[in-house]
């Protein structure tokens, strides 16, 4: 393992300190926690809190700021944060109208955030949440923990953040969140695994000439391995999977997010974007919003994911385009 770190078990603490130092005009660290909280005036709106294991930077702390998240809870690498820390984030984000949580669908995250909600209830803070499960690589059945939450989560942050900024109530955010999540689908692929600094070894093994479709952002297994192939055929596979899920019609309006996994250069991301563009153009989709870059990474994994959000309401585009002050949007 070759990484710019000190003690592997101190990586998250040190990263949070560095981030907060670098962006001290925007964010602050809540004392004795790894919660990154925005430095914006409180004006009686619903707070928006997300978080999860670290290793997905800029998620989620990079999206803390006016118009997006009120706070992000940074867990240990690939490990859900604990209820006491989530509770601190909730308390700091409450402006009197309650707090909305955006949770990625992993057993650990759901349990820890639910426990934090129980604790907040005892402190008389109203809390609602949405669980994001956009990864279509997973079978959604009673035989799995359900679909995982991956890069599409960032679009949920943006839409709900803009709605909260506009003054939406907790109940309105819940309804909006559920609707957005049901219109959101993603799928990824990996060329090489991530190495969790605390583990010291790559999360899985894969041949130098192989790729795996459907790998999760913690290196969870995908659905198929193949030999490395040109970007155009990789894009075709991912678009085909999304098409099966959406059953779209020509003219349908979508937001597009192409996300790098951490060690895939922007050069390759844009090559892939060009291929996706051609494929979706053939489908005659209206790509009303587009974003490309590292949004939900997996430490140093080489790979990419493709997210589409079916725009069910043109208001969602306003929310996506609304100005924000964050580190990474």
């Amino acid at each position, binding site marked *: 393992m070759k990484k710019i770190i000190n003690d592997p*078990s101190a990586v998250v603490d040190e990263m949070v300190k560095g981030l907060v130092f670098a962006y001290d005009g925007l964010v602050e660290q809540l004392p004795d926690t790894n919660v990154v909280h925005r430095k914006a005036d409180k004006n009686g709106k619903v707070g928006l809190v997300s978080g999860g*294991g670290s290793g997905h930077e800029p998620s989620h702390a990079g999206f803390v700021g006016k118009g997006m998240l009120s706070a992000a809870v940074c*867990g*240990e*690498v*690939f*490990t*859900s*944060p*604990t*209820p*006491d*820390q989530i509770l601190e984030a909730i308390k700091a984000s409450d402006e009197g109208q309650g707090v909305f949580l955006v949770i990625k669908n*992993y*057993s*650990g995250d759901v*349990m*820890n955030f639910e*426990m934090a909600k129980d604790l907040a209830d005892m402190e008389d803070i109203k809390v609602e949440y949405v669980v994001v499960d956009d990864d279509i690589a*997973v*079978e959604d059945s*009673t*035989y*799995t*923990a359900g679909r*995982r939450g991956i890069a599409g989560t960032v679009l949920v942050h943006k839409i709900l953040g803009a709605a909260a900024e506009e003054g939406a109530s907790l109940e309105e955010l819940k309804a909006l969140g559920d609707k957005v999540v049901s219109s959101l689908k993603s799928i990824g692929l990996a060329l090489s695994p991530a190495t*969790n600094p*605390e*583990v010291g*070894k790559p*999360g899985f093994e894969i041949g130098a000439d192989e790729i795996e479709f459907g790998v*999760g952002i*913690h*290196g*969870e*297994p995908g659905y198929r391995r193949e030999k490395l192939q040109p970007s155009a055929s990789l894009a075709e596979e991912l678009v085909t999977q999304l098409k099966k899920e959406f059953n779209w019609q020509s003219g349908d309006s979508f937001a597009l997010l192409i996300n790098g996994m951490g060690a895939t250069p922007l050069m390759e991301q844009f090559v892939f974007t060009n291929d996706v563009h051609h494929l979706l153009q053939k489908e005659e989709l209206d790509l009303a919003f587009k974003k490309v870059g590292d949004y939900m990474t997996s430490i140093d994994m080489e790979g990419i994911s493709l997210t589409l959000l079916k725009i069910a309401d043109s208001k969602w585009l306003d929310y996506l385009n609304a100005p924000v002050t964050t580190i990474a949007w």
Partner: protein
Amino acid sequence: MIKVETAKKWLDLFIEQLLENKVYLSELDTAIGDGDHGNNMARGATALKEKLAEKEYDNLTDLLKDTGMVMVSKVGGASGPLYGSAFIEMAKAAKNDEQVALADLLQAGLDGIQKRGKAAQGEKTMVDEWIPVIEDVQNNQLTTEKVDEYVEKTKPIKATKGRASYLGERSIGHIDPGAASSGLLFKTMLKAGVADE
């Protein structure tokens, strides 16, 4: 009746075993999860060691409650809330009945795990360790060999809960890491003599 000194000895041994088996538990989790179970439990064990050194405990409830709180706030992942709920529910059981029998104490812990994680028997989780162990404790026939046997028995199960469920068929043939760490809990319970009281 379970003496607080004996329970303290149990936890001390459990802490020691978690630290000793950190790499092993993470290796089990690398095969069917995300490779952090040993690190998570070791982080909890280190924090628990510090917590338990802070004061002398004179009752089982406080000891179990503090243990639960440390688990919840330090372990993280899925196992943090699960072990945390187990110890907090055991603390409640000890509070309601100072003479609580070991099997009833453990049953309260299992109820906590199942309430939080909603896993039934046969889903390849720590629940598959707790259920047969509690049965044996009830019948006074738990042995170290049996604890190990139940851990081993998670191998052929196909996971339908937790991260391992993403593997489907490929989760077959591997020990469940949470069942293995629970195995350490029950072996140290026997070693400390909790079952003899």
